[in-house]
């Protein structure tokens, strides 16, 4: 148990520090690389939560595919040079602190409003499910029965986005 706790604090600290690095670096490439570190730390936290499948997805999809896209866009747009800060002057900083305060307040509220015990999962049910169906099956099976309709709509959504991107990007037929 103690080992898990140590690992948790280590990765949580790493996630926070690299997130700070991501938003404070001036160079977009450095920011993107810090973001990769954040995503790795989050994946480690998922493993600590017994959600290995989500951890692997996090690495494959976010740290892999999406970060590559980020870097491509940065290179294509030639954003390598540090530009001026977006948040300017006391008004911008004040707004940032105000919004951060609102978020903190919400977190505090949510801590107070813990969901009633009657709608929480019985302890150990997730672990039992993983024992029975395996890590992937427990995620995959509901996709094809309970959540079949949203799943199929998602595929249409992706198709529409694909067609839309082609329509906007192509110059001539």
């Amino acid at each position, binding site marked *: 148990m103690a080992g898990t706790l140590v690992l948790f604090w280590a990765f949580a600290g790493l996630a926070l520090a690299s997130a700070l690095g991501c938003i404070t670096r001036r160079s977009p490439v450095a920011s993107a690389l810090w973001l990769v570190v954040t995503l790795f730390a989050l994946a480690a936290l998922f493993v600590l939560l017994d959600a290995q499948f989500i951890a692997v997805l996090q690495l494959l999809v976010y740290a892999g595919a999406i970060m590559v896209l980020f870097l491509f866009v940065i290179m294509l747009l030639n954003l390598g040079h540090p530009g001026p800060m977006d948040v300017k002057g006391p008004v911008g900083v004040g707004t940032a602190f105000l919004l951060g305060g609102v978020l903190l307040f919400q977190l505090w509220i949510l801590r107070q409003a813990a969901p009633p015990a009657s*709608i929480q999962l019985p302890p150990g049910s997730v672990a039992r499910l993983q024992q029975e169906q395996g890590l992937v099956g427990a995620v995959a099976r509901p996709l094809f029965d309970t959540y079949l309709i*949203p799943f199929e709509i998602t595929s249409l959504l992706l198709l529409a986005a694909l067609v839309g991107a082609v329509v906007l990007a192509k110059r001539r037929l």
Partner: protein
Amino acid sequence: MNLDFQALDLSRTGDLLVALAPELVLTLAALLVLLVVAWRHRTPEDLRLAGWLTLAGLGAAGFAAWFLWWQAARAAGIPAMIAVDDFRFVADWLFLGTTALTVLVSFDYLEREELWVPEYFALLLFASLGMMLMAGAQDLMVLFLGLELMSIALYVLAGSSRRSAAGAEAALKYFLLGAFASGFLLYGIALVYGATATTNLTLIGVQIATLGLQHSAMLLIGLGLLLVGFGFKVAAVPFHMWAPDVYDGSPTPIAGYMATAVKAAAFAALFRVLGEAFAAVPAWHAIVWWLAVATMVVGNLIALAQRTLKRMLAYSSIAHAGYLLVAVATGTGAGAAAFLFYLVAYTLMTLAAFALLAAKGTNGERDVRIDDLAGLAQRRPWLALALAVCMLSLLGFPVTAGFIGKWYILVAATSSGQVLLAAVLVLASVISAGYYLPVIMAMYMQPEPSADAHAGMRLGRLGSAVVAAAVAGLLFLGVRPNRLLDIARVSGASVRAAPAVSSDVPPAPLREPTGR
């Protein structure tokens, strides 16, 4: 396979296919149109072919929706992802009809503006599919996905005129603010799920009643964020800033589509969410009340200051969102009926007004001022008459559908004790005369500035048919609203009845991850 239309069991594949028939037909049509334009996309005839295929698909989906409606299809068993009730079928008809009218108007418009974008029609189909899913969503997840499907298609349609800088600006603005609004909505959904452990609308209602969550902070924050997201989508003040710029920069038929069908879909989803999931939460009445007042007052006042017709219509559509919010705020059966009736009337008049605007000029009609219509009555009497009827109906003048719709909203508001809201509605309508009447005065009372002032005005045969049908519908509904009102009453009640908080509702099954 024996089907019982009155008790479709949505956990069985066959019954699910029947319940989703309109959506499935429309999906097939969209895929077919995509396939056809992949091979044929070079000549204007190909564009027309895609358009007619789209119309056929809309007709087939409309037939499927009508068939289910006629069979009085209902779902039985535990609440599922998709609602099967009259409200969904009537809303489907509204969306399909609006899309069909938009397609008809688009034929001539695309050719005149030389917008050779054959995917235009497929995207319209995807957008209307998203709308149907929004109105039929019994689950917040389906609702969100439907909303995204609709929005993504519309972001592209708004920017489909690739030569126009205003079009690109409109698309980008719509995309950014739409993504922002989706974020609010999604955050709200997450919090509601956190409070109730379900995303099903009926089960949320049951959970709120059985667990006594009316004052739970998490649920209320979630509800507030949901209302912000919907406020963006229906362009209610103070979330309206994007609407005029986006309508202004989009191709005019798309602007008309966004002002009517998109707004109607967002309203239908909002109506269902508030009616089914949050009927037991009193907090939203006050929020919607304030939204309605702000939207009516601000929308009408800013519309007064507009000089170009397109922006005036954009602000007018914001003001009308306020009137519809009044009907939502009443939260009664009469309010539901008035809401649906006004939605139909508003769709007809706004769509016809945008179609007429599309006939007026070129370059996206962004610079058509109200004064430019001077003397239109002498040169093109029928067009002037049609536009005059639309303006009078938007104003709420007797013998038009706009009057009847406003009248029923007023009755619903006063009979539920919202007298102040009704008074604001009347005052706002009086203000709106200040910008609707100048259009009519310019057409009928001012001389033509030059002999060829209206020479470029061209409303093709299909466009004329659309406008004529819409105007005839407005006048007919203004004289004989009974049939539509009956339909509106029955289907509006079908949303109310669902969240019965009686004891015979099965206890909410939790989404416990039990594999099979």
